């Protein structure tokens, strides 16, 4: 869709056409030169598994097992490409749709569903994966990521030249988030502190019902330079290009070169969440246009053309996808209900007179129902 303004597809770094044909790029091709067929099949596998997980979660929501679900459908290349460029020591601040990135950080995908099932506000231990909890308040976490990167600087973990030590921080957010003060402050703070931060915007072209044209007149990546932050626009449905631009930005961050803004130009193929009805605000022609640019099909076409997608691999992946779907389903069914008293735990680090008194009252109140018979509560 050749457009102008924030929806133009000009100026995108691309290493793979929608038909799956490789494109040479003087700066970015070298960054993927080491990715052999195994690595590409690994990314393909990641994307297929994450999509299967996403579809399973959507089905679970429809069946009443989840209160809500926010699909990553269509954004797999942006998430897997960037996620696979990360080093274990890097630290990620996701928003709430980064299921693919979570997968690359080794988070059990089933744990992502705890929040959406309404039994947990988080779901995993961030320290186990260097993957922070999801943040639902748009753009808040971009400042946390900036501050985290400022801490990393103070810890002397940028610019040592040791690839096992130097670390970068990445914040993921959407096109809508670029309008928030917090994101603009993250650009200011990361720039003036030269913080080792990658601000990874998935411009999926919709913030619920509002097209990116509601947030900006110009491509979102154009905002970076005004803050003194180098920026790049990348074809977000091209997993190789997403890998390459992220690798470059991570290297800049780790080496002490400061922040980078990446705009991954992609598309939210599904609804905003299971509560949303996109037919109210966008055309099926537009959806069809993007279905033709599916990120998974693109990598698949490349692998097929290069003779690197053997039937056994595909059969194995099919079986693994089915197994994942079943495992997720079973895991959700097995998720217990939190105890009511857990609501009073962890509000403060230690005892608190008010919370403790309310908890004690509540436990007594609940116990009063248990006796039954005369004198028991209704």
């Amino acid at each position: 869709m050749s457009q102008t303004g924030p929806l133009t597809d000009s100026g995108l770094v691309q290493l793979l056409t929608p038909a799956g044909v490789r494109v040479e790029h003087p700066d970015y091709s070298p960054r993927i030169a080491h990715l052999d067929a195994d690595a590409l099949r690994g990314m393909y596998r990641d994307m297929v598994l994450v999509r299967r997980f996403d579809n399973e979660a959507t089905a679970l929501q429809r069946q009443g097992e989840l209160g809500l679900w926010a699909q990553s459908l269509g954004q797999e290349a942006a998430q897997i490409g960037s996620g696979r460029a990360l080093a274990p020591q890097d630290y990620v601040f996701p928003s709430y749709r980064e299921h693919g990135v979570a997968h690359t950080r080794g988070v059990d995908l089933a744990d992502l569903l705890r929040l959406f099932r309404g039994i947990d506000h988080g779901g995993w231990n961030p320290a186990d994966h260097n993957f922070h909890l999801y943040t639902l308040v748009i753009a808040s976490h971009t400042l946390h990521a900036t501050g985290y990167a400022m801490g990393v600087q103070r810890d002397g973990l940028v610019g040592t030249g040791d690839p096992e030590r130097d670390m970068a921080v990445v914040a993921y957010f959407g096109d809508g988030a670029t309008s928030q003060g917090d994101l603009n402050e993250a650009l200011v703070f990361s720039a003036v502190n030269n913080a080792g931060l990658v601000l990874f915007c998935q411009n999926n072209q919709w913030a619920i019902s509002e097209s990116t044209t509601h947030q900006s007149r110009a491509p979102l990546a154009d905002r970076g330079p005004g803050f003194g932050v180098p920026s790049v626009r990348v074809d977000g449905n091209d997993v190789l290009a997403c890998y390459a631009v992220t690798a470059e930005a991570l290297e800049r961050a780790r080496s002490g070169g400061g922040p980078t803004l990446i705009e991954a130009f992609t598309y939210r193929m599904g609804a905003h969440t299971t509560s949303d009805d996109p037919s109210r605000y966008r055309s099926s022609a537009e959806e069809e246009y993007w279905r033709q640019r599916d990120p998974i099909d693109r990598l698949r076409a490349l692998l097929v053309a290069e003779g690197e997608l053997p039937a056994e691999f595909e059969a194995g992946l099919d079986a693994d996808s089915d197994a994942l779907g079943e495992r997720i389903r079973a895991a959700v069914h097995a998720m217990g209900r939190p105890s009511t008293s857990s609501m009073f735990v962890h509000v403060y680090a230690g005892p608190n007179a008010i919370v403790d008194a309310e908890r004690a009252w509540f436990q007594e109140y609940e116990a009063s129902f248990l006796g039954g018979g005369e004198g028991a509560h209704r």
Partner: protein
Amino acid sequence: MSTTTGTQRITLAKAINLGLRRALESDPKVLLMGEDIGALGGVFRVTDGLYKDFGADRVVDTPLAESGIVGTAIGLALRGYRSVCEIQFDGFIYPAFDQITTQLSRMHYRSQGRLSLPVVIRVPYGGGIGAIEHHSESPEVLFAHTAGLRVVSPSTPADAYVMIQQAVASPDPVLFFEPKGRYWDKGDVDLDAPLVDASTGETGLDRAVVVRPGTDLTLVGYGPTVGTCLKVADAAAAEGTSIEVVDLRTLSPLDAATVAESVRRTGRCVVVHEAPVLYGTGAEVAARITEECFYHLQAPVLRVGGFHVPYPVSKLEHEYLPSLDRILDAVDRSLAY
């Protein structure tokens, strides 16, 4: 753009929709602003159809920035426009907190009354809808604590229809808290209801009302809890207790006089809200009732509401929220004094 008249049985969401439509029709300076309020009609469809009928200049899909929404509404107000801002969910009002508390609330005061900011901020609030974090909160008291703001919350479609129009007409900024869990409750709405009482010249936007008379205890609620209080009154009636239910309707100003008048007759008072009881509306009502009718009280004023914890996960929200049982428990405790 047909203006409907007569009495209709409609939902609370539809009542606000029709009230907004009336406001847009009757004053060309009225604007609606917010995230996804245009083609989508808002995530709760409260503005459904208004974008189509009034256009993008008057029903504005804003960039995703609450501080920007309220800040520009202030500027528009300085230029004579009356903006009705929609905050998508209670938990997302905080980016606008600075604009609301340091600017919106006190421009009239700072300018010695020369400038007024007739801005309405609509906030779907409250829980019970099984939502994820930040979508079920009750932050109304933060605003009631701020001088210069009016804070109101309707509990019925009929009130919602009238109160939203009165809020738009108000020269003061109004925080308009909509009980989202009640959006789909239906009630009869007189679409020709006057906004000003012809005999007194008053709107009643600053008045509480007795919605069910009773003699043994005064149960005070607002917004989402009024319906629950009425059910409590039914349950108590079956056991021979006569409960009077007061719908506060407005937290700022607080109509303590109407509550006090009731408590002087009943001698007992229980206040119910979803917001935490600590430093809440119930605390304010209890203090005022104690001051104003101490010698009529046969029991301390009791409160039922949220706990001093962040709003819990949705699987536990029905334990957190003031349920029928928890209110009855407080009623029993009050009667046992």
